[in-house]
């Protein structure tokens, strides 16, 4: 029953999306309000339909309907409820459906909230969102259907289909449950409940600014309207993608057991590429809003972001790249590639058409190298260069060499470690300098004066990092430049609050909150800069000063690393967890200066029922602001476990990476929070927003 309900709801959502797309385009041609209303209603209907569809699949997972092939593949009777829920996105077919569900929810929100204010863009927004949704639903219906069931054919062979084929009978429920596959052990991590949904929200969320940009190009309303309407959607998508990336790193750190968190793996890079373009976009739209410049560039960035999202989806889900993160090689590769090509060609075509007609001309020119707009342009160029460098390293070089050289050339981690650091450093320097420059023009002297106090603060950060561990002068300089991007943000906020305190006599708390409330975008942005600076320091410290050792210890013996002593206390073998896995756990005590600081339990999990990969090495770590003491259980003597071998890492400053994401969330939420009504009222008198539709 659940399979039928899910399949029919998905099919209806596909039909509604297709209908809405066609009808929306047609309504523009015919200038027919009734048809547009019909298109809108169909578009809005896709969200509840997808809710039913996802609800059916989730119910099937929770109620153990193993006749459904997807349920059989990702769960078994031992799977705890928690992982039954995460199994919804645990494999290709379910995660594709989940992706479409999120997309319909985003489309629902954007259409419902902007319907009145953006009437002129709406037909196209509906058309483009629904076109993309229909394409993804088609993949679910025709290539990766999560509602297919197993059937026993009259000749006793096993077949797959949503509905019973002629003479087919369902297999025995008991046998199905006995043979069910269970969730991939790699995905049994608490992070998997939030990492994929956040990453998908990030990917899918960019459909909204993409559709509005396409709508602006198609409708000819090339003012900043589309940017204003989508600013919060873009920030929401960007925040989700950022957190998805950080949590993905955390998952790798916790589960893959190699002591690192970012491996420059093609799939990680595929998710990072849209982040780079969208971050550039978030900066450059400010120039269009404030100075009427970079109109073509902004279009290019957001269309490029979405194109990168679809390309990344294709790369991850087609089996194109070899990676621990990728999905099964799948039949959706070619259709997804075709869709990516079509959507990219359509975007570029529309953009070129408007450009050639001269409708995207800038209203101002650049003035001086140090003006804020020039520095923003420079920041954008570097983001795009990073995009090119990482794309080339992950996909460009292998594809190019295969097409034109008859061999495959891949670029490893060393390529990325050689090419990207100077570009990242340039971005940090710009992050420090650009907020201090003024629109229009700034002199070097003024900029230099503004940099004095933040530089002193940055020097304090460098000093404390130098005291923490011996560091080379060049690295200290780089630490300083990264820190500067954060201290500028701190100093500027403090300066603003001090000015209010002095001028208006407000107490410090009021001065601070009122300052932020007056310009949430700016101070939210500063908080994000601060979080990225912390992340940068964490990434650099953990990459450059990681220490590692490995030793075999007898019970009672210790090893030393970086001022810590680790003692092997004992072993707990064959512990059975509630999901049926067998855990072999080493017990170790970590001491510093003779005092016990932590008791850790690195372990090896064995999944007796899992096909293929059935062991997982789970690290255990003692975390402080200073860094992690990270222990892997490598091996042990059978039965007695009198001796066990450990691999131990010290990852300095790594926790700054995870903790910085809290500031990132706070900063983005402040930036997204609606401005006060006064600000809104002034915004409406700006000529560019006086649209016929807005007034209607």
């Amino acid at each position, binding site marked *: 029953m659940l399979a039928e309900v899910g399949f029919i709801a998905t099919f209806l959502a596909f039909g509604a999306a297709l209908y809405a797309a066609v009808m929306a385009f047609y309504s*523009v041609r015919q*200038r027919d*309000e009734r048809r547009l209303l019909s298109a809108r209603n169909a578009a809005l209907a896709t969200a509840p339909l997808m809710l039913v569809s996802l609800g059916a699949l989730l119910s099937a997972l929770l109620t153990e309907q193993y006749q459904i092939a997807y349920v059989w593949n990702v769960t078994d009777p031992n799977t705890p409820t928690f992982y039954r829920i995460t199994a919804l996105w645990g*494999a*290709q077919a379910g995660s594709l459906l989940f992706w479409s569900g999120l997309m319909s929810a985003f489309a629902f929100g954007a259409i419902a909230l902007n319907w009145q204010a953006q009437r*002129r863009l709406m037909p196209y927004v509906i058309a483009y969102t629904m076109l993309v949704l229909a394409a993804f639903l088609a993949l679910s219906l025709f290539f990766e259907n999560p509602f297919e069931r197993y059937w026993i054919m009259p000749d*006793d*062979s*096993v077949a797959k289909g949503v509905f019973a084929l002629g003479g087919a009978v369902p*297999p025995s429920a008991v*046998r*199905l449950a006995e*043979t069910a596959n269970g969730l*991939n052990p*790699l995905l049994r991590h608490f992070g998997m409940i939030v990492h994929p949904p956040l990453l998908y929200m990030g990917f899918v969320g960019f459909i909204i600014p993409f559709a509005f940009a396409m709508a602006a190009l198609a409708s000819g*309303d090339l*003012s900043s309207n589309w940017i204003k309407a989508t600013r919060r959607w873009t920030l929401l998508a960007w925040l989700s993608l950022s957190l998805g990336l950080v949590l993905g790193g955390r998952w790798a750190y916790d589960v893959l*057991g190699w002591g690192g968190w970012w491996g420059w793996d093609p799939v990680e890079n595929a998710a990072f590429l849209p982040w780079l373009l969208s971050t550039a976009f978030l900066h450059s739209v400010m120039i269009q809003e404030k100075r009427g410049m970079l109109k073509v560039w902004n279009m290019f960035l957001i269309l490029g972001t979405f194109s990168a999202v679809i390309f990344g989806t294709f790369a991850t889900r087609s089996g194109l790249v070899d*990676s621990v993160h*990728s*999905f*099964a*090689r799948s039949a959706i590769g070619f259709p997804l590639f075709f869709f990516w090509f079509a959507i990219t060609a359509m975007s570029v075509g529309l953009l070129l058409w408007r450009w050639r007609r*001269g409708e995207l*001309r800038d*209203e*101002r*020119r*650049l003035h001086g*190298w140090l003006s804020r707009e020039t520095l923003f342009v420079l920041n954008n*160029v570097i983001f795009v*260069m990073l995009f*090119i*460098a990482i794309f*080339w*390293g992950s996909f460009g070089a292998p594809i190019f060499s295969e097409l034109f050289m008859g*061999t*495959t050339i*891949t*670029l*490893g*981690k*060393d*390529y*990325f470690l*050689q*090419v990207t650091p100077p*570009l990242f450093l340039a971005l940090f320097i710009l992050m420090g300098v650009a907020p201090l420059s003024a629109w229009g023009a700034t002199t070097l002297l003024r900029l230099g004066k503004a940099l004095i106090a933040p530089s002193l603060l940055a020097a304090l950060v460098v000093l404390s990092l130098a005291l923490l561990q011996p560091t080379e002068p060049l690295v200290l300089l780089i630490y300083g430049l990264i820190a500067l991007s954060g201290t500028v943000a701190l100093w500027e906020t403090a300066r603003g609050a001090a000015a209010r305190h002095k001028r208006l006599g407000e107490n410090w708390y009021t001065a601070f909150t009122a300052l932020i409330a007056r310009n949430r975008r700016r101070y939210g942005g500063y908080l994000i800069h601060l979080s990225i600076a912390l992340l940068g320091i964490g990434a650099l410290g953990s990459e450059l000063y990681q220490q590692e050792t*490995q030793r075999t210890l007898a019970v009672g013996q210790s090893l030393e690393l970086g001022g810590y002593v680790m003692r092997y206390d004992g072993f707990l073998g064959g512990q059975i967890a509630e999901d049926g896995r067998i855990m072999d756990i080493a017990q170790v005590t970590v001491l510093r200066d003779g005092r016990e600081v932590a008791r850790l339990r690195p372990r090896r999990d064995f999944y007796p029922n899992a096909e*293929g*990969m059935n*062991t997982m*090495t789970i690290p255990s770590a003692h975390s402080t602001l200073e860094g992690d003491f990270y222990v892997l259980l490598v*091996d042990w003597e059978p039965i007695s476990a009198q001796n066990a071998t450990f691999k131990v890492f010290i990852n300095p400053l790594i926790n700054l990476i995870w903790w910085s994401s809290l500031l990132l969330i706070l900063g983005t939420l402040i930036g997204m929070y609606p401005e006060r009504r006064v600000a809104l009222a002034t915004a409406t008198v700006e*000529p*560019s927003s*006086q*649209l016929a*539709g807005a007034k*209607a």
Partner: protein
Amino acid sequence: MTQLAWEKPENVPVEASPQGIQWKYVIGLIVLFVGIGYLILQGTASGARYFISVDELLKGDYIGKTVRISGAVIGESIRYDPQNLIIDFTIANIPSETNDLARTLHEAVRDPKATRLAVHVRDQVKPDLLQNEAQAILTGKLGEDGIFYATEVLLKCPSRYHEIAPNQSIADPSIGK
């Protein structure tokens, strides 16, 4: 009123757009692009790894060059010294990757005629995925002694990347799994 929504707004200000190319910025951009382009080229030259099969590695002139190879892991050959973190195993040549990777790997391991290559890995914990019929993607150098010295090991376990279907046993409760 609603009809107005279709019309192009008339009061959008179209400022006289500044004309002419701002050469100093264009030149600045070109310098930047050339610099970064050089960085990318240099990185490519030093980071490029030929991705080849075991057969190609042994037939070509690759001794001492860093390459990336792909092969099927022969389970019984895996030897692991956890005290010194040394892994030795043998891989078999994979003729050409097909859509059914699991079958290709299975056949490569069982084929006595398939070219085999001994692999030596130092200072690495044995990966959980290193097992019979996994696909190994190894970066390293072929030594004069005919052993491949790998520095980077990436493993793909076909069952993880391919959907498994239940076998005939689900049709008949009397047959074991």
